[in-house]
């Protein structure tokens, strides 16, 4: 297993309980508790089944690179746009300076921003592809993410090949202010242009897909698939509850709810995603 896959964000803390945290994170190295049913699982076994709980089939987060590796033909993925790095156009600061937040997140994750993009082959067919790195500031979309998504479609346009995106994002990154918002327009314009080559854009919504990402390129897929029980929607549940001052019904904004309401094409188990995407490309491209 490559090093980046097992690497967990380091817990940096001056807390007296640090020793215990350390021990916990060491345990996490070998064993994982299912987020849903609580079953204790051997990590190596879990990774073999792409982080889907064998006991309850709950779909736990699957890191972007591991996902692309599992999906694409072995050795076919070529990552591009790797030189892109975020800036701090507003000089933004809350409890921490945005500049420092980027720096420490980059160091902890070994990633420059919240998106990985490139080209690869899916069952021998070239695809322009990208996936959110949710671990990087909640997969929030700033200028770098917007630029990479735009390039996925520009490359698909140039190569006249299908585009595939995996979304896992809370939405626009507020630390980049208006520039984050404008990525919604930029990416959507790139999709508008891409339509001319008549190749499919397959959009896969993972947990969670909300806000400005949902309200731009994620929902513009020719076909939209979702993993089971992913949270998908425009406004976050907390915002809605605060606005309407009532509790939201069980299952609201989950994949199954969206399928029921005609908002997505299908819910696909993680193990079946590869074959389903390949099937659709065969039928559409």
């Amino acid at each position, binding site marked *: 297993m490559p090093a980046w896959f097992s690497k967990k964000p380091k817990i940096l803390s001056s807390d007296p309980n640090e020793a215990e945290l350390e021990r916990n994170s060491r345990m996490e190295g070998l064993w994982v508790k299912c987020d849903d049913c609580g079953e204790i699982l051997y990590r190596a076994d879990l990774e073999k089944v792409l982080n889907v709980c064998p006991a309850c089939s709950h779909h736990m987060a699957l890191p972007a690179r591991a996902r692309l590796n599992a999906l694409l033909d072995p050795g076919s993925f070529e990552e591009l746009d790797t030189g892109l790095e975020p800036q701090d156009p507003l000089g933004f600061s809350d409890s921490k300076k945005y500049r420092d937040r980027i720096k420490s997140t980059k160091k902890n994750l070994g990633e420059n921003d919240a998106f990985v993009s490139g080209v690869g082959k899916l069952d021998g067919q070239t695809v322009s592809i990208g996936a959110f790195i949710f671990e990087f500031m909640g997969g929030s979309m700033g200028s770098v993410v917007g630029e990479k998504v735009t390039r996925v479609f520009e490359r698909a346009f140039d190569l006249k090949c299908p585009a595939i995106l995996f979304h896992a994002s809370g939405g626009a990154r507020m630390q980049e202010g208006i520039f984050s918002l404008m990525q919604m327009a930029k990416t959507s314009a790139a999709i508008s242009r891409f339509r001319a080559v008549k190749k499919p854009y397959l959009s896969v919504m993972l947990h969670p897909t909300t806000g400005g990402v949902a309200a731009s390129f994620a929902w513009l897929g020719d076909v939209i698939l979702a993993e089971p029980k992913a949270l998908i*929607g425009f406004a976050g549940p907390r915002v809605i509850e605060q606005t309407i001052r009532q509790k939201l019904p069980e299952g609201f904004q989950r994949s199954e709810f969206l399928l029921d309401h005609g908002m997505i094409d299908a819910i696909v188990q993680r193990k079946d995603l590869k074959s389903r995407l390949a099937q659709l490309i065969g039928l559409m491209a």
Partner: protein
Amino acid sequence: MALSFTHALDFERPLLELEKKIEELRSLSTSGTVDFSNEIGKLEKKAKKLQQEIFSDLNRWQVVQLSRHTARPYFLDYVNAIFTDYAELSGDRLYSEDPSIIGGFARFDGRPVMVLGHQKGRSTKENMARNFGMPRPEGYRKARRLMELAARFERPILTFVDTPGAYPGIGAEERGQAEAIAVNLEVMAGLPVPVISTVIGEGGSGGALAIGVGNRVLMMENSIYSVISPEACSSILYRDASMAEKAADALKLTARDLLEMNVVDELVPEPAGGAHRDPAKAAEALGKTLRKHLAALSTMNGDKLIADRYAKFRALGVFVGK
């Protein structure tokens, strides 16, 4: 222009009090025997100076408040002042009519155009009907229908942005709020007619952008445009909604900020004290600016307009590396 005190902002009050005093003296002068003209002249001078003091150096939070001022001209006020022959069109043909976003054909200097904008209400009752200018998916779908109509009949599109944001409610989610906004972004990118978008008050996030993808993006001087409201930003970042003032500063969301960052094309100057102090003058300035940009865009054909819009939004973003 005398304004009611009930809707006045705190920082406007000293000015309004002074103006009230002038008004009182004036009515005494005209009705009575005593001549206050000397006094009035002095006070008027003072009021002018005070106005300059208050408004020459507004902080961002004050601009946020001005952008939401309940006396501020709304979309329909500008329609009535700038356009003639307005024919409002309703409904998304799918589910319902949404009065928080409205539009229709109208004439601009005699030339047929499509106008479209968020509409807030001034009274509580009207605001209930207009949902405080927060559209549901059907509002965005109606907007899309009207923009496609405009494209079919080769009419330029002028949009006017003034919303706290798209409505976050159960029904809105069930009917695909995110999808409705996303589709508008794509449709707008491909419109073969001139599109000019002006933020006239509040530009609240995706709900604003959904009618904001123009060849030109203008902002009224005291308007704002932001990825998130300062209140929401503050409750997320500082876990405290009362830090909105600080959040407004961090977000750099005023028209002036956006012009400096080259995100918008031009600032439309407002009368001293804000558009609500002299709506006619504000409308005149807006009309003049729209006229100029529409004339420039009218020389481009459909393909050129689409390419122009693409280049504009393609360039937005700040990062390093290739």
